[in-house]
């Protein structure tokens, strides 16, 4: 048996690649990000019973199982033409809120935190989760873990298990919440609301009081004037679980508002020869390339996009945090990619408040949890806001409910054009006259880490992260620099 070490020399397959092409002057002409692609999910699904989808799709993504579960469940409601009971909708939204609160907090503290809490220019050895803990203290670190534990317990109570839940049925949910369980969920919600405020306070202290960080957020290197998309409720407030899809233009004006079922009238996918990833764009504006502005159909999804596309948050503390964010950053819409981190915290607070609100709802322990489907299935579409953006599941079946066609538009795909633009813009700003600074990989990674993209995250292979390689080519196509992590 071989003993091996994974070090920078060990080339692992399935790595992400950033390719930068320089012009004659040695400045960045074009840059693109290529990521490993998982194949064959549609084929894998076809021929199966549609009811299997809420369980199967949880395995597509290692970090968004609950989002896929919920989009699939809603697609089944639509497929079987059955409206869930009022209590079932609330139970689903409760589970979904707990999931979003946990996911967002975890991302900010542990995964986005190294950029801000520790700082982009901090020594390499400290720019990781352990560095974050070193900076914020063990107590805060412990609280993150505790919040995660409690929110996952909510998922366990409702969904049967914290990952790969089994709660969703067409027309409802599989299990009622007991009074005893409600108490536990209320405690989790209270803990979440408190900790999300601590996290926002931390952002205040560490980021907003540091001029360099604020300059970085508000500067042009990481900004794009794009369209923004997100689900909103009847009052145009952010909603993760249900509502209509609203799109605002780069000036913040409502451009479109439509039901998830009409997504094909608004969203199209562009294909490029150099990658398997499809790039979503607004059909009625059109694909004009990897450019921003009102004439380009490129749009963005995920926390900042949702806030830009809404008129506010439906809970009081989150609304106050939302107002503070926009007043600090000069009003709506905010185009800075790095502000996704701040918006993520505002949303985490909303999700925690909503968890608590729903747990206190008298109907949440109702036993009226499912309406049985009676219609013949044909086609169903379900849309939710995954933590990483708008997620669409679209199924077609025969009259027995056996899948004949499956189309998923995942959040990262909706952001993929913008992610490439962010990589290119950062490369253009950082590379001058052939000088490629060593810190460039991190600065470019910061551009796309803010989106929290899903890159083949269903794979679990060691070392548990997607290796990334950056190659710079001169105007003759000769490789002049290679960096990797």
């Amino acid at each position, binding site marked *: 048996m*071989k003993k091996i070490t994974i070090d920078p020399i060990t080339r692992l*397959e399935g790595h992400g690649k950033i390719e930068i092409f320089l012009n004659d002057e040695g400045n960045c002409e074009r840059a693109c990000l290529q990521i490993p692609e998982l194949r064959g999910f549609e*084929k894998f699904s076809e021929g199966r019973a549609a009811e299997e989808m809420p369980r199967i799709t949880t395995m597509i993504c*290692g970090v968004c199982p609950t989002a896929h579960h919920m989009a699939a469940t809603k697609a089944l409601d639509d497929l079987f033409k059955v409206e869930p009971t009022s209590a079932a909708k609330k139970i689903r939204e409760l589970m979904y809120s707990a999931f979003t609160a946990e996911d967002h907090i975890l991302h900010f503290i542990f995964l986005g935190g190294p950029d801000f809490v520790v700082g982009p220019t901090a020594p390499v050895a400290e720019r990781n*989760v352990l560095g974050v803990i070193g900076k914020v203290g063990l107590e805060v670190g412990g609280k993150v873990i505790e919040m995660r534990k409690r929110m996952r317990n909510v998922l366990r109570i409702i969904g049967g298990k914290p*990952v790969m839940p089994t709660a969703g049925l067409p027309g409802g949910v599989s299990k009622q919440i007991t009074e005893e369980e409600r108490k536990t969920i209320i405690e989790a919600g209270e803990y979440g609301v408190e900790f999300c405020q601590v996290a926002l306070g931390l952002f205040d202290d560490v980021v907003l009081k540091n001029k360099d960080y604020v300059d970085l957020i508000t500067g042009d290197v990481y900004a794009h004037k794009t369209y923004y998309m997100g689900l909103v409720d009847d009052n145009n407030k952010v909603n993760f679980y249900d509502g209509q899809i609203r799109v605002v233009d780069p000036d913040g004006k409502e451009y479109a508002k439509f039901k998830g079922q009409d997504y094909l009238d608004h969203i199209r996918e562009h294909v490029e020869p150099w990658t398997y990833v499809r790039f979503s764009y607004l059909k009625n504006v059109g694909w004009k390339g990897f450019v921003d502005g009102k004439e380009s159909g490129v749009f963005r999804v995920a926390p900042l996009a949702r806030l830009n596309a809404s008129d506010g948050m439906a809970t009081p503390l989150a609304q106050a945090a939302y107002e503070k964010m926009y007043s600090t950053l000069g009003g709506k819409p905010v185009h800075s990619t790095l502000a996704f981190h701040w918006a993520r915290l505002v949303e985490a607070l909303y999700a925690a408040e909503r968890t608590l609100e729903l747990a206190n709802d008298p109907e949440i322990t109702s036993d009226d949890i499912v309406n049985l489907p009676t219609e013949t299935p044909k086609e169903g579409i379900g849309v939710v806001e995954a933590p990483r953006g708008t997620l669409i599941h679209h199924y077609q079946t025969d009259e027995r409910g056996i899948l004949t066609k499956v189309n998923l538009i995942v959040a990262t795909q909706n952001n993929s054009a913008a992610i490439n633009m962010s990589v290119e813009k950062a490369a253009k700003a950082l590379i001058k006259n052939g000088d490629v600074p060593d810190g460039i990989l991190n600065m470019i990674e910061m551009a796309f880490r803010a989106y929290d993209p899903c*890159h*083949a995250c269903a*794979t*679990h292979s060691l070392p548990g992260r997607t290796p990334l390689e950056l190659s710079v080519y001169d105007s003759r196509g000769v490789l002049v620099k290679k960096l990797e992590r």
Partner: protein
Amino acid sequence: MKTLILGFGNPILTDDAIGIRIAEELEGEFPDITVEATSEAGLSILDEVTGYDKLVIIDSIKTGKGRPGELYKLELEDLKPRSDFSSSHGLDIATAFKLGEKLGYPMPSQVSIYAVEVKDNTTFGEECTPELKQSISLIVGQIIKEERLCQTSSPKS
């Protein structure tokens, strides 16, 4: 010694499931050893492994150089992140371990990590490739021998 064998993988991503398949083979073989399979990664390892003295991890790897089904043994230190950042989503096992230690969790003092070279971990499918399927019993035997599992426990008849 309280021992946990933990198989990692995605059950619907062809060879990515190998850790789970091997865990399934080992489950119930040794009455004193807990065997679990998980599709989670990163921080969730803390939920699984705390409170055990010894941990045996079985996962997949794709170096592209080995023969599919070839078994490697790694140390926790071998999984250190290359530089400053782990992936944007998950913590790698080594970092999760350090975090657990820092937070004062009872982490296992002995850790063995096995990685199986895989052929295809990017196509959705419930079965491993034939090369890996054929290797499973051999790999199970290698791990039992290397970890001297027969000597510490009585195998199920």
